[in-house]
């Protein structure tokens, strides 16, 4: 009888689940609504009528139970702002009471004393809190709301309560004047920090465009250099590296992607549509668990991902031992199994600079 820490347990199961087509990891986008208005968010919708199209707590619980029946062991609750969903606590407690290793992503605004007490009593495996600024001015610039004082106070309370916190930073052009200071602030909390190096194209109905908040490659590289100096690894907990090292699979195959989306993981968007991961292009594959049941939806997504043909260009690409084709990055062309040349060129340029820096060091 072995007692394993969660991380070891999750690592042990990840390859087995993929081989057996078990949906062991689920992401639930509870709502597209949010109490902030981040200019780079790919999800957030402002149309209040969305509220009537969102899934009720009961619908989420039905889906979650079906997912558990099919083998789900870990779950992520996200949004929009997941904690604004009226049934957030019912959904969270349902997962906790069924032994699901649960992670919550939040902007920290609703992480008040009462919420922290509940999390303290029934702790999530991890609480990812986004940090969008280092003062009121930067918070307003990025999120449209002066939430700085409140969020920082809540982060400190959560840390003092002993919760497992990870601070998430998403650099964008709106954060540019303050990005380094935001990283310094994050470091001052002495918890795990993750600095995203990927910005997603927002969904069409958000009215936002990546070009409006993207940052130039030179700036991104400077941020990543600073990140390296401040934090020991890309993911400061080392979780990402830990799990990657335990992945036993070819980087490039004729059929099927390297990543776990749709192979052992799934996501359900706020409108109840299942996709391999949260921002996956629906014209490649999507399914309808509310109508067809979780099992059928999972089978459809899983089959599509097992048989997804990687673009032919990847097989001759100089970076094919480093870059795993991801339909999310090639959104408009992924359904045709093609690469987006802009994204490929961007990655190649990025890699060349990294090589140069490595040689210089």
């Amino acid at each position, binding site marked *: 009888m072995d007692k*394993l820490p969660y991380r070891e347990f999750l690592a042990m199961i990840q390859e087995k689940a993929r081989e057996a087509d078990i949906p062991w990891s689920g992401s639930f986008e509870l709502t597209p609504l949010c109490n902030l208005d981040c200019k780079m968010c790919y999800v957030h919708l402002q149309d209040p009528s969305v509220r009537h199209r969102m899934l009720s707590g009961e619908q989420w619980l039905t889906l979650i139970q079906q997912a558990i029946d099919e083998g789900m062991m870990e779950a992520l609750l996200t949004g929009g702002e997941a904690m604004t969903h009226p049934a957030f606590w019912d959904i969270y407690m349902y997962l906790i009471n069924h*032994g699901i290793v649960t992670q919550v992503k939040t902007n920290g605004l609703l992480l008040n004393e009462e919420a922290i007490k509940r999390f303290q009593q029934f702790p999530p495996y991890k609480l990812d809190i986004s940090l969008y600024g280092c003062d009121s001015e930067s918070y307003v610039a990025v999120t449209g709301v002066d939430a700085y004082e409140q969020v920082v106070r809540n982060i400190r309370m959560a840390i003092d309560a002993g919760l497992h916190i990870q601070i998430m930073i998403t650099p964008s052009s709106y954060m540019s004047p303050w990005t380094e200071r935001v990283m310094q602030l994050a470091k001052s909390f002495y918890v795990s920090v993750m600095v995203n190096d990927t910005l997603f194209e927002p969904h069409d109905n958000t009215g936002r465009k990546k070009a409006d908040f993207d940052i130039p490659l030179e700036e991104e590289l400077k941020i990543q250099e600073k990140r390296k100096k401040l934090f020991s690894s890309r993911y400061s907990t080392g979780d990402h590296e830990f799990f990657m090292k335990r992945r036993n699979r070819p980087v490039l195959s004729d059929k099927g992607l390297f990543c776990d989306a749709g192979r052992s993981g799934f996501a359900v968007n706020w409108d109840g549509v299942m996709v391999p991961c949260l921002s996956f292009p629906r014209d490649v594959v999507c399914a309808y668990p509310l109508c067809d049941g979780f099992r059928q939806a999972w089978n459809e997504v899983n089959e599509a991902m097992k048989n997804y043909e990687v673009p032919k260009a990847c097989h001759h690409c100089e970076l094919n031992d480093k870059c795993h084709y991801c339909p999310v990055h090639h959104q408009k062309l992924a359904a045709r199994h093609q690469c987006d040349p802009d994204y490929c060129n961007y990655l190649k340029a990025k890699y060349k600079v990294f090589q140069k820096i490595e040689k210089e060091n």
Partner: protein
Amino acid sequence: MSELQMNKDFVLRRVCGLNVVLPTGANVKDFGGALNLNDTGALIFEQLQAGKTVEETATALVAAYDVTLETALADVQETIESLREAGVVA
């Protein structure tokens, strides 16, 4: 033999050929991990959690595997001790 006091805030999951005991509710805070059981251990856990006595559990083991009652009783006791150490049995 006396009845066991099982901590009910644990759940046994059988996924990918593994038998895993996970904490639920308030146990998540103190346990913070997973117990990996073999098939025999899982059967014993299930029986005990269903309120069966040590003898009844051993009898179930005899029915499932080709073992004597004496061996089964020893296995059950050994598993109970491990579960007690892990905090699953009070």
